[in-house]
């Protein structure tokens, strides 16, 4: 089978970036990634951009044309990819498939979200558009509340504690304190998490990822091109995607995100590896409970034991299986469309051994997992040196 490599990565600072626009952020990440790959724009065969809600946050539709145009890449075919918070991961998968199909040799995959141009009061509603509008949002459900429903049940069924949820945030902030691009690059204490304002019981403010601006970009290449351009390409060993119920009410088990289980199954199979072969992972911790559920659904820990694994330090940077060395969505920030691509930027940086103070030791195989909504979409990718 053909192989696809990541030959360049670029990312902007994440945060409240008042001087940057949707287009300027995307172009900044794209330029960095193309420079990293060492290729000119003329070599680009196709462009994919993950963006969830440009239509709402900045009222910009037709993002495909905008990015190709302001990226100076006309007339390269450009496609905007949307699947809520999994838009970035899904854009990557489209790029991967495009190269596998043989129609392109070099593909640029970007992800972006410009969230702080909207008023704070509008943001909750815009993000809730990833839920079932008629039967969840209509009743007043917000995004944190959907994950809070999962958290309450996880605590009820498995004895997961508020402290364990809090420790996910503490760990990810520690990792993020070593990431200069993080939205919140500082450590926090468990007391601070537990004392923060309640958003939707049991989730407090410090259990939630922030509203961030930011963009990330990766350059994909066919095996031939990758070998020609770099001596350290990072290979995309597999891509798995699965859909799940849009509404949390229709899930078989709200403590499991079926789409992750199914996407991971495809990804492990395609890569010919098991969860035991994974050295570290970037997972979708939009809320702390999500990280606990994800590391169980990816097969790393038995259902119900994710919280304890965090408490025991297994998922810490120096633990057996580091989770979210970048700081995760919690500390690094969560510009929704950018997230899935930013995860890949981190995995590639780690596999290249260039992650500096947050470098995972002996990182050879890494995994990224990106979720849309409360689990309606999941995308899992596996990478190796």
């Amino acid at each position, binding site marked *: 089978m053909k192989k696809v490599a990541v030959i360049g990565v670029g990312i902007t600072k994440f945060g409240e970036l008042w001087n940057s626009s949707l287009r300027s952020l995307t172009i900044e990440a794209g330029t960095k990634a193309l420079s990293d790959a060492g290729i000119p724009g003329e070599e680009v065969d196709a462009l994919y951009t993950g963006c969830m809600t440009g239509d709402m946050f900045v009222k910009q539709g037709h993002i495909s044309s905008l990015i190709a145009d302001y990226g100076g890449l006309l007339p390269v075919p450009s496609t905007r990819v949307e699947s809520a918070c999994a838009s970035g991961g899904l854009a990557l998968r489209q790029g991967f498939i495009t190269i596998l199909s043989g129609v392109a040799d070099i593909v640029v995959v970007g992800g972006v979200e410009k969230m702080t141009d909207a008023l704070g009061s509008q943001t909750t509603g815009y993000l809730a558009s990833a839920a079932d509008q008629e039967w969840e949002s209509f*009743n007043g459900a917000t995004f944190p509340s959907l994950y809070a429903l*999962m958290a*309450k*049940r996880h605590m009820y069924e498995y004895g997961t504690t508020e402290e364990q949820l809090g420790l996910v945030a503490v760990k990810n902030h520690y990792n993020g304190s070593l990431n200069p691009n993080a939205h919140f690059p500082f450590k926090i204490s468990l007391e601070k998490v537990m004392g923060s304002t309640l*958003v939707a019981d049991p989730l407090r403010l410090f259990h939630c990822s922030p509203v961030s601006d930011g963009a990330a970009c990766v350059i994909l290449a066919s095996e031939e091109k990758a070998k020609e351009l770099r001596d350290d390409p990072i290979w995309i060993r597999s891509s798995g995607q699965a859909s799940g119920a849009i*509404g949390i009410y229709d899930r078989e088990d709200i403590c499991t995100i079926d789409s992750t289980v199914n996407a991971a199954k495809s990804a492990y199979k395609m890569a010919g590896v098991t969860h035991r072969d994974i050295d570290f992972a970037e997972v979708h911790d939009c809320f702390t409970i999500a990280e606990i559920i994800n590391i169980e659904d990816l097969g790393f820990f038995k259902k119900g034991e994710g919280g304890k694994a965090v408490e025991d330090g297994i998922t810490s940077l120096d633990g057996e299986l580091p989770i979210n060395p970048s700081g995760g969505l919690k500390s690094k920030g969560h510009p929704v469309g950018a997230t899935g691509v930013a995860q890949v930027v981190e995995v590639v940086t780690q596999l290249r051994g260039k992650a500096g103070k947050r470098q995972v030791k002996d990182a050879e195989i890494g995994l990224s997992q990106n979720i849309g909504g409360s689990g309606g979409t999941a995308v899992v990718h596996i990478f190796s040196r």
Partner: protein
Amino acid sequence: MSVPRFWREIPYRYRLIGSYCEKCNETFFPPREICPRCRRSGDIKDIKLEEEGEIFSYTVIRTAPPEFDVQTPYAIALIKLKNGPLIMSQLTDCEMDDVKIGKKVRMVFRKISEDGEAGIINYGYKFVLAE
């Protein structure tokens, strides 16, 4: 928001009408055009759901979108209907401290939200504690 968007869902929201697949003997809410189990080979019919159930999970929302701002804090829950599916609903007329997983609840008819000052008023089901 246009009136028809809410008007067309009235039977389901006011009376808790769901869908029933005769082939799979399974009930769904909200209503579905085709059965997700047997797909087109099934026979989907409207069914009146029981107005009683128990709390499967819940949370109290303290940060809400503008149209629900006046109601905060409010509780939402996943409710396992008697002989029926899980549905999402607000809980109302209750002390937040009394809300627990496993508590029995029953449906009531309430105002859900207002679409601004001049827009329509949305009504539908909420649930109250039955014990």
